[in-house]
């Protein structure tokens, strides 16, 4: 893993920054250089959230091309498609949150089609569904973290993700532990 650009996106309140922070701490714990850039304040209140996470020999706090795009929500993933090229892997939660205005009618299926067409690989994960089944939709970010920890891209730092999660305050909540563990075993939905 010489240099890796990861973009984490979602809706304020979904735990986008938490997910990115745990991932960056794991990379750091495994001895990799990390640089993470987030925005706070007004942008947090239910709006679009975007975190840049860079690993390896990097300097600039942001980038234009993502190697990996982690989406906690489909529409936000679509919104950030300018970061996607045919070298990008997209891992996205199968969840669609309509913004306040109801004008938008593009379906889940249509978004997934566009994402699939543009990316090198698209992996759609039923993280919301699993989190709801476990009792708390708020643990969907931990399902995603679990899934990512078992991803072949992160084979070398898998144990660090595991360590960082279990050391964090988030592992004190039962639903989160279940979400993380069962997230590891999730299989992407095939389209």
């Amino acid at each position: 893993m010489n240099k890796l650009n990861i973009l984490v996106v979602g809706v304020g309140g979904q735990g986008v920054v938490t997910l990115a922070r745990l991932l960056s701490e794991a990379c750091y714990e495994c001895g990799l250089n990390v640089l993470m850039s987030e925005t706070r304040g007004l942008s947090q209140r239910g709006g679009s959230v975007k975190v840049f996470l860079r690993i390896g020999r990097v300097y600039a706090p942001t980038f234009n091309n993502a190697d990996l795009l982690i989406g906690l929500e489909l529409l936000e993933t679509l919104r950030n498609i300018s970061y996607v090229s045919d070298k990008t892997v997209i891992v996205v939660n199968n969840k669609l949150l309509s913004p306040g205005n109801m004008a938008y009618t593009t379906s889940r299926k249509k978004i997934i089609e566009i994402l699939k067409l543009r990316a090198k690989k698209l992996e759609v994960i039923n993280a919301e569904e699993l989190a709801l089944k476990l009792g708390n939709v708020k643990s969907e970010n931990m399902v995603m973290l679990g899934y990512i920890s078992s991803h072949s891209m992160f084979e070398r730092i898998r144990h660090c993700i595991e360590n960082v999660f279990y050391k964090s305050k988030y592992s004190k909540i039962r639903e989160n532990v279940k979400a993380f563990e069962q997230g590891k075993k999730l299989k992407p939905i095939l389209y």
Partner: protein
Amino acid sequence: MSKLLLPEKSRVLLLGNEAIARGALEAGVGFASAYPGTPSSEIIEELMKVAAKLGIYVEWSVNEKVAFEAAYAAAICGVRSLVAMKHVGLNVASDPLMTSAYLGTKAGFIIVSADDPNMYSSQNEQDNRWYGLHAYIPVFEPSNVQEAKDMTKIIFDFSEKFEHPVILRSVTRLSHASGVVIYGKLRKPNNKGVFVRNPSRWVAIPEYSRELKKLLVRKWDRIVDELSSFNLNKSWNERSEIAVVASGIGFSYAIEALEILKAREKVALVKLASSVPIPRKWILNKVSNARKILVVEEGDGVVEFQLKNILQDEKVEARVYGKNLLPRYGELQLSIVVKALAKILNKEAHIVHGNLVPQVPRRNPTLCPGCPYRPLYYALKIAIRKSKVKVVYSGDIGCYTLGVYEPFKVHDIVLDMGSSIGLANGFAHVLEEKVIAIIGDSTFYHAGIPALINAVCNRAPILTIILDNETTAMTGFQPHPGSDKPMSSKHAYPRKVPLENVVKGIGVDYVYIVDPYDVGETVRIIEEALKIISKRKEPVVIIARRPCILYKPIAARTKPAVLDVKCNRCGICYNMFACPAITKLPSSKARIREDLCVGCNVCVDICPLNAIITPLEGKWQ
């Protein structure tokens, strides 16, 4: 233990603002103050956590001017001090800033200005490095998180050497970036000082100030010279014909862009850590061979402006590029810097073009479910409709500014902190409409009080609604003078200054306090207040009091549900009240989203058909 107190040589993953805090501790800071503001708040937040343990004094001040003056006073008494604020905060503190350069300091004094290019959480994106040129105060800019720590420590020494204040300019992408930092040694803080009486130095009356100004310009020349040996300014390949001069975070973009273009060896790279003033002799030496110079900096062309001046003075014929190739607004981006560099290198830039963004609807930030401002705005709109009056809403800065969006649209103008009442002082005398100023509690303490005094003594007929949620919510729940948390590290309990005491003390005769969760009562009070203003032509204040739902969440309460048979699809709850926890079903009936609902139960009140109910759980409550 706080990670800020780990021993020397520790490697720690830190936020830029935490790194600045650690740097201050390594310099032995004894006094730190701030008014919260994104992206600066975490500096004081982190110092506050370790203050008692280290025996240093840290406070949240009522506004940036007072924060500045407090820290400055400590510094002239010999206590190393730091004051932090967001860029626009320095406007509030600009009065003491300008003259502090005349008076100078004794111990090191650092003003941290956290600028917000691209305005993620701000009303403008002013570049505060201009203040350095304006005030004769040096500005230093770190390029990454490690340097943020190192530089903070070093410039305390610099400030102390010249007995002069210095500005540390950060930006969002530094303050809110996390990176690996290697620690230096903590220095024992000194928190007690001595004031040495010396009127010709500390009293800025015209007679003394004329002399102080002469000393100031001479000091400025010495500072320019000294910066030529400032060791965070660095350079590579000075002999090249093409040079890149980059300051602050701009350096991080520039060096990566050069690596992407594989041009590190071909280009003279000059890293400016001291962007105001530019060390004249040093920079001339570094770009003496250059025919083309690209300046990479975030914000305005502050370095470019100074560099062009110096080159013109010295008759150096190099072409300087900067804001003609790089954006004049927003943030720098790697692809844009690569493109600009490729242009002056006459190279093809192999930029992978990202996909065009399809039409995706905006997702605006919104008031949280359970936020007390939503029922307040809802009641306000009803009261205005019932009163049949035309209104101009003079808004202010905080979470409640989100009222500008659908469905409430209650801010007709927002300018700066405290301007809701300030502007209303003008509107009220020239408009036929009723003028309503809407201001948050922390904002009122910060800059609303003088404006309200002005309204009282000039009899401006304004309805001021103070939204009191007991905290400075938007920046992360810092205390204000009306909060139940102490403002400084010295005290365990707050000494409150209640809003109603202030408002009554100012001389407002009609002051109402209402709980915005009680929508009916809030409507009634707003109607009554408007009548009083019409009759008596003087200001009236309503304090809408209810804690922020994130600051003090409601203890487990029953969440309401919609009775499907009673709901008649009127849409009041999801269109007009517009709580994010109420969704419109395909049938146009309403449903409560249990994952988002916090159980405030205000929607039970606003449904005209009583179709939203709080279910009893099989027992009497």
